[in-house]
């Protein structure tokens, strides 16, 4: 019922060399970047950075060596992710491919798909977006209506995906679509398709978000024709595959480190002599950060051991995103600067950005309400 019993020292010490190598790389690559630029971190698209990271071998590390990976366990990826996100590195370009598309293709893809896609993912050259949400299917993912029908050797896709981060800068989308009838319940008849976003029949419309950024999109498919081998995994098993894919999304360091740049900037702004209120806010945040880090590590250890971690990951995500959201709230209360969109200081701009980004933290990857339902189910109440 509680997060896995876990002896962190032995496990973590095995990865100290990797941690320091990544930290050294980041120190060189990110030197002198301003906090507001870094604030978007895993929402910040920087193909150059992704390629350099790929050159180091640090993308797709859990994939087998024959596909360009390191054949490492989930723990290695966890340590790399921690360092990237703690430094607020711009990882958005390769993030989805590294976190979920690569492992999904490895697990369910054909040999041809693996050989053609995975090495380029590992090199930091090939970017993916997630095709799940639709205009009328958000939390209720099974309500999707985008349909793919067979026509000879091809799939013909019609429908639309929405809130698709980086669709306009990605090469592929892995989309959940209806390929059959929902004969045996709402979760049947669904499949995952690999969609080349450069094909005719794909229209990508940007949706500006409240921060003024253009990372969201609506992606419309009009008689889009895909080859038969665009199917990933088994026809009709899309729901199970997507459920497994979501498990990669829920317990990583991106569920508690999204606002860490603001905490770092706050500490810098406060300086070495905090007053009692400032010390209290920072101390409580540090305590929660230590806790969340060890909870997240415990889930990674469970994943590494191949154990079921659905409940733990949901608990981790709900507390982690609450923590991320509270940092701008508490910083605002300290009244050290008003948030600014223009002018002001690195601190006031970082505060403004995180404040506006914060609502998304408990929406993406499963809303707070959905996550608490998953916890209740894990506890035997549903």
């Amino acid at each position, binding site marked *: *019922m509680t997060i896995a019993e876990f002896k962190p020292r032995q496990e973590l010490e095995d990865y100290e060399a990797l941690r320091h190598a990544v930290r050294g790389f980041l120190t060189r690559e990110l030197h002198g970047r301003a906090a507001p630029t870094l604030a978007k971190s895993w929402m910040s698209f920087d193909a150059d950075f992704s390629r350099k990271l790929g050159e180091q071998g640090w993308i797709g590390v859990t994939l087998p060596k024959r596909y360009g990976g390191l054949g490492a366990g989930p723990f290695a990826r966890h340590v790399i992710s921690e360092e990237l996100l703690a430094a607020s590195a711009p990882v958005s370009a390769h993030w989805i491919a590294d976190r979920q598309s690569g492992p999904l293709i490895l697990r369910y893809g054909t040999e041809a798909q693996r050989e053609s896609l995975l090495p380029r993912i590992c090199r930091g050259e090939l970017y993916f977006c997630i095709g799940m949400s639709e205009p009328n299917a958000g939390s209720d993912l099974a309500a999707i209506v985008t349909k793919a029908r067979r026509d000879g050797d091809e799939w013909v896709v019609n429908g639309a995906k929405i809130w698709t981060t980086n669709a306009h800068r990605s090469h592929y989308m892995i989309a959940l679509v209806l390929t059959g009838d929902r004969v045996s319940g709402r979760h049947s008849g669904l499949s995952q398709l690999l969609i080349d976003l450069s094909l005719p029949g794909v229209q990508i419309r940007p949706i500006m978000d409240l921060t003024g950024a253009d990372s969201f999109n609506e992606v419309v498919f009009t008689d889009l024709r895909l080859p038969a081998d665009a199917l990933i995994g088994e026809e009709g098993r899309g729901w199970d595959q997507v459920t497994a894919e979501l498990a990669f999304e829920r317990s990583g360091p991106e569920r508690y480190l999204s606002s860490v740049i603001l905490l770092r900037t706050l*500490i810098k702004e406060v300086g070495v002599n905090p007053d009692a209120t400032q*010390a209290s*806010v920072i*101390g409580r945040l540090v305590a*929660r950060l*230590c*806790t969340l880090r*060890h909870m997240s590590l415990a889930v990674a250890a469970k994943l590494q051991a191949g154990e079921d971690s659905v409940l733990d990951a949901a608990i981790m995500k*709900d507390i982690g995103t609450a923590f991320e959201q509270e940092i701008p709230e508490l910083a605002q209360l300290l009244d050290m600067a008003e948030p600014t969109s223009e002018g002001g200081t690195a601190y006031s701009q970082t505060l403004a950005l995180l404040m506006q980004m914060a609502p998304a933290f408990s929406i993406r990857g499963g809303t707070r309400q959905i996550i608490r339902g998953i916890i209740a189910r894990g506890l035997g109440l549903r």
Partner: protein
Amino acid sequence: MREIIENSVERLFADQLNAPAIAAAEAAWPAALWSAIEETGITRATGPESAGGGVPWSDIFVIVRAIGQHAVPLPVSETLFAHWLLAGADLEAPSGPMTFATDPLHLSETGRVSGRLKNVPWGRNAGHVIAIAKRACGRASLVQLSTKNIAMELGSNIAREPRDTLNFDHALPSAAGHLPDVFDGDVMRLGGALLRSAQMAGGLQRVLRECLQYAQVRRQFGRTIGSFQAVQHDIAVLAEHSAAASRIAEIAFASTQVSLPLLHVGSAKIVASDAAGAGAALAHGIHGAIGLASEHALQFVTRRLWAWRSEYGSREVWAQYIGKLTCEVGESNFWSTITNGTFDRASVAEAANYVVLSN
């Protein structure tokens, strides 16, 4: 090892403790219960290996957490910590219940101690109290004092656990030794915070279990209250508090070896204290009026959660302390402090090399 300890402690406490037994112990010292627990040897687990101890703190965690789970109305945590202190100073430990004090005593040239020790857990029942005694020059010793025939003012916390004030006037310690360098002056407060964090984590596990059981049998509006989404979400939040408190308390215990790790102990006390308040409120809300009845299992645990979160520094006191130290090591040392798990290794060299944020 840990599983064996956990199972035997669980069996022991489950056999010995139910609501009437705890209520009786809150009214009068349960000598037979103490003997039953002491006989198993668990109270000496932190002493030297030659005296039946040598169990690492990472395993002691499960004992201390179980004390919270079962609302054990005895100074088991305190005795464990006292054995560890004595072993650290190479002093032989007496048998029987022991306790410790956070206030320092004054140590005279003739080796006698004087002073007032406030809020000593089970001062009236413990045979000995362990305290730090300082000479005028500032040098500190660890002293073991008999509690026989000393002036005492009785008090109790809201869990009705004795918290007594002990007055010593030129008393001769039954043992005294050099305070090891690895114990700083804060060792008593740190130790107290460490123990209470794990006890609160155990208490939260227990209230979660009570809520899960109750929500699945109590029916209102024709169905179990656990089938209502509002109740499910309250219990989910309670489970989050329980998991967080347990995780960080366990980390604090696991990183305790010869000294107490300030960052992790402080974090554990902060997170567990927050969780205790929020968790107790949620649990009572879920139970409704029945949780307030004096014979109900829930209130034995929630009263302890309320008591323990205030002891050895509230959340706010610890937050200010950890916050001050974080600011002292600075932004550039921030992440390495978190990954090292200690303020000690914050180094100027590493800081100079970390990602520099421009202004």
